[in-house]
């Protein structure tokens, strides 16, 4: 029992650590900007209360700056008390993408690798935030079953994750860009937490987690961890010869099989507890009433002979691994923009810089740049809009009159006109206009100009205030889950009916 309590505590503290590190970074920014001591400047800043609350603790330290520099990052890669820790998956992936050995990166993976070699896949079951989320998915399934709604139960092969790891590394090697970094759930979750504290929206990432979770709840239990996770695959391989194992005392086992349905890794603890799939979470130990399952330390050298039959890897697999490693070294980087035929960086002659306050467009030979001040206009405050129209080839500025009108977009029906068509002459090489946006939302600023005798209309989509997109995405996700559920339920009903029919037929016959 206490093992599970400790495990939950560790998992919770990892979440807290990620949040705390993000807050420390936010605090470091305020400290560097020297606003932390100033009540007036701090007012209304993000995380104001927390920053003020930790301020006295940190200023008491001997060297606050080195403390702030030494504690940074997320589960993907972090610095804790000055020690750099990196997920081995990040190192392996970047190694295959760049084919360049950066020793500090490899050294920073040392602690996780040693821990995995000694303790097995404990990163998964004890640390990974994704594991916590997907365990929650398992609990949701239980809840569904309790409500007598039977979710589908499709199982995929556990070997898939090793194939995914290999394919992903090959993709990274060929595309010369990390691939897992963007989809690996622990990295994604810690990034979402980090972005949440810094006030950046990451709805796309939430969507990924939502899709995986929905799939696990309704279709395939613990799908990601058991059959897809490339990190789990890597940790599994690293921790294959772990001394810490869940061991069965055959004499004590009553054969109640209580441990099988509770296993988070989806294996049979009685026969497979020493296999590569076991992540030493210890749930089976908790559920084993006769206490036949226990953690046991076992030095691999002594038991190597005994284990050899069960653990021996066939020659084919070894050869495949060797071929893979060789091919990884032999693949040449195929930089992504070459594949897609995109131009090289800096080839583009127009402005590469696009801060939020600029909206570029082109028409005929002209480059048009809409600038607004303030960058994202506040509703009910006058905003200055300026069009800068310049000929791309001759580098001459457009000097004739243009007409401008502003519309408010609406999801249903006609767009409403905010500012009717007005003519503007250039002043200081720009066409200027003042406009007041009434509410938060999306607007269209329409520019009409005469180019080579033709009248060209360019619509610019502008955002005023902070229209909420997050809610709509969350609602869509929920709706998607409900629809998926209804479909699954309908299929089950149909199946049940068909079964009943065949039964009736049998009875009749």
């Amino acid at each position, binding site marked *: 029992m206490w093992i599970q309590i400790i495990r939950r505590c560790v998992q919770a503290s990892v979440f807290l650590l990620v949040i705390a590190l993000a807050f420390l970074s936010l605090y470091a920014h305020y400290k560097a900007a020297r606003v932390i001591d100033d009540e007036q400047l701090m007012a209304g800043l993000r995380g104001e209360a927390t920053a003020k609350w930790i301020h006295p603790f940190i200023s008491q330290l001997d060297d606050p700056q080195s403390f702030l520099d030494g504690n940074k*990052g*997320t589960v993907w890669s972090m610095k804790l008390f000055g020690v750099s820790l990196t997920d081995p998956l990040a190192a392996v992936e970047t190694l295959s993408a760049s084919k*360049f050995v950066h020793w500090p990166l490899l050294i920073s993976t040392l602690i996780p690798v040693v821990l995995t070699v000694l303790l097995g896949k404990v990163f998964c079951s004890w640390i990974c935030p994704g594991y916590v989320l997907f365990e929650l998915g398992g609990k949701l399934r239980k809840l569904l079953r309790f409500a007598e709604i039977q979710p589908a139960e499709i199982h995929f092969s556990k070997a898939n994750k090793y194939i995914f790891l290999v*394919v992903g590394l090959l993709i990274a090697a060929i595309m010369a*860009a*990390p691939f897992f970094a963007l989809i690996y759930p622990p990295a994604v979750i810690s990034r979402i937490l980090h972005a949440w504290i810094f006030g950046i929206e990451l709805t796309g990432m939430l969507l990924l987690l939502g899709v995986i979770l929905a799939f696990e709840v309704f279709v395939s239990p613990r799908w990601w961890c058991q059959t897809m996770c490339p990190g789990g695959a890597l940790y599994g391989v690293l921790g294959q010869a772990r001394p810490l194992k869940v061991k069965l005392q055959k004499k004590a086992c009553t054969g109640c099989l209580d441990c099988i349905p509770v296993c988070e890794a989806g294996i049979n603890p009685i026969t497979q507890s020493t296999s590569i799939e076991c992540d030493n979470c210890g749930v089976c130990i908790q559920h084993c009433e006769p206490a036949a399952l226990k953690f046991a330390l076992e030095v691999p050298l002594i038991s190597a002979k005994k284990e050899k039959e069960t653990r021996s890897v066939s020659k084919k697999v070894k050869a495949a691994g060797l071929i893979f490693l060789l091919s990884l070294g032999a693949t040449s980087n195929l930089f992504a923009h070459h594949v897609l035929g995109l131009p090289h960086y800096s080839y583009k002659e127009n402005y590469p810089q696009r801060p939020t306050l600029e909206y570029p467009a082109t028409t005929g030979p002209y480059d048009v740049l809409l600038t607004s001040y303030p960058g994202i206009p506040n509703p009910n405050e006058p905003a200055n809009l*300026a069009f800068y129209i310049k000929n791309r080839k001759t580098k001459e500025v457009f000097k004739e009159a243009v007409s401008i009108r502003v519309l408010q977009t609406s999801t249903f029906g006609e767009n409403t006109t905010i500012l009717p068509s007005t003519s503007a002459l250039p002043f200081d*090489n720009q066409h200027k206009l003042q406009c007041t946006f009434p509410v938060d939302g999306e607007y269209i600023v329409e520019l009409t100009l005469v180019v080579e005798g033709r009248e060209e209309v360019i619509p610019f989509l502008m955002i005023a205030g902070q229209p909420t997109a997050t809610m709509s995405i969350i609602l869509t996700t929920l709706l998607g889950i409900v629809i998926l559920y209804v479909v699954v339920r309908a299929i089950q009903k149909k199946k049940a009916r068909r079964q009943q029919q065949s039964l009736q037929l049998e009875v009749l016959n």
Partner: protein
Amino acid sequence: MDRRNFFKQAAALGVSISGCALFSGLGRSSPDSDGLLRPPGALDENEFQATCIRCMRCVDACPNHALIPVSLNHSSGTGGTPNMKPRSSACMLCMSEEGDYLKCTEACPSGALQLVKKETEEIKEKVHIGIADIDFDLCYSYNNWSCGACFRACPLAGEALTLGNWERPIVNPEACVGCGCCERSCIRYPHAIRVKKEPQA
């Protein structure tokens, strides 16, 4: 494994992998992936994209909040890599900070940012974020006004940026490190001086 099961597994795996690839937007360019300004000490763009592990530790380390990760919402292959938008916040080359190295280069675990010491000579040699570029139709000093704000903001004033008559700025591309202080300080909308990525071989 029978044939049917094999095909089921292969199909499931194929769908999941392509789904993940689609989601990560591998190889797709983000709305502003051309001309991303990388932090000081960054490798060449292609090598940088291959080496960067998207941990965003440089973003956390930047004391001036000048580094902003490329949005992960647009699902592009560059998502999560650091980018600089000097108009919002420029690279101060850690001049008012403690420590011997530029903070972002010190924070980088993967070697995508090579260590740069906080010494003028080393900064001049190793930092190549971009090169300032002046639009002569917009710059006040070239259009019957007089300004000189960019010159006063330049950390290498007199070397990277010199002043001509009527406070007209002149960029020396050899010495400019691309910190973007000039772009940040420009009083014009749209800004008349901008940091552009250096052309690569």
